[in-house]
């Protein structure tokens, strides 16, 4: 078994309970893979970001990471100090596209990252992605979890998250 690290962008979903009276619960879909990760002796942690998604860091066997690669978007770097210069253009474009999909504007992205994205580190882009998250609430009338447009700060920094999974 070879444990390795991986960074992922993972959506939230609503957990379904057998008792219809149970209040709704949101959860990060990485939770579904907790048994695999635990069986490896690994761990995961994450921080909620924009777009009802989380940035997640996982430590698990490479086989398990391969399973996760098929389910979620993996950032093709493992070390947050690594430069995006080592990535291909299409990989850098993919990262930008995924961050814009979260709800950040192109103008905001370009303002933070003028010039070539290759001159920045993984920490830079993940920190930008984790600069805020959306409010949400449960609407009893429609029995739905509503993701609001209002935002609030994220619960932890990328540096803290990085240190939680080593």
């Amino acid at each position, binding site marked *: 078994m070879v444990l390795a690290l991986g960074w992922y962008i993972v959506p939230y979903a609503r957990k379904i*309970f057998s008792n219809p009276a*149970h209040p709704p619960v949101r959860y990060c879909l990485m939770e579904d893979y907790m048994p695999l990760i635990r069986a490896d002796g690994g761990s995961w942690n994450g921080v909620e970001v924009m777009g009802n998604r989380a940035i997640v860091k996982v430590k698990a066997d490479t086989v398990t990471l391969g399973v996760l690669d098929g389910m979620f978007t993996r950032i093709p770097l493992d070390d947050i100090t690594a430069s995006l210069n080592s990535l291909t253009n299409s990989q850098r474009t993919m990262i930008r596209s995924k961050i814009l999909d979260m709800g950040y504007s192109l103008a905001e992205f370009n303002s933070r990252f003028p010039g070539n994205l290759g001159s920045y580190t993984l920490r830079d882009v993940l920190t930008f992605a984790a600069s805020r998250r959306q409010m*949400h*609430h449960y609407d009893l009338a429609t029995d739905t*979890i509503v993701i609001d447009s209002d935002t*609030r700060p994220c*619960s*932890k920094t990328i540096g803290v998250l990085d240190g939680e999974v080593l």
Partner: protein
Amino acid sequence: MAFPTTGVLDNFSTDMSAWTVLVGGASVSSGRCVGDVGGQNRIARTTPTYGPDSEAYVGVPVKGSNGDWFNLFVRMTTLVNSTFDGYCLAIDYGTTDSWNIQEMLNGDFTNLPGGPVALDFTAGDQIGIEIIGSAIKGYRNGGTAVISASDGTYASAGYIGGDIALSTQRWDDFGGGTYTAGGATPTPMQMMMGIGT
């Protein structure tokens, strides 16, 4: 680290006058707390706020059935169901009970990384939640934490409470309050002398 560090607040010997009902209701029956309705019963201690480092715990002499649930809250920001934030220890009863620690936002719950932990508890056990700084832990009968998570969203003192879901399970000896460093509940004499308070 010892858990709990605070004393019992309510042994449910009289009534629920010290509690605010957010959803459903709860009553005292034969010296225990029981939910009033066959769905959600959400209650919280009306005063005071505790913490920010705080804990809440309760004995569960009668568990719910599979599909029922149990929640304990700390750092509740309000006593209104549609607006309260804070943290929750959530246990879903099943073939094996499933534990999670959750962030609560406007009464909407989100699992924090760290769970679920599959662990049955037995009727008569004491279940508790503790938050110190941004570290949140869940306990069964004190001892080593069953589950832990970290979150820095809500840092202020808050109310404590929980969900006694459905009308089958029973609570007894609800306790909690501001976490007491050193892990020991002050004796009445120590409190009179200002030691450990």
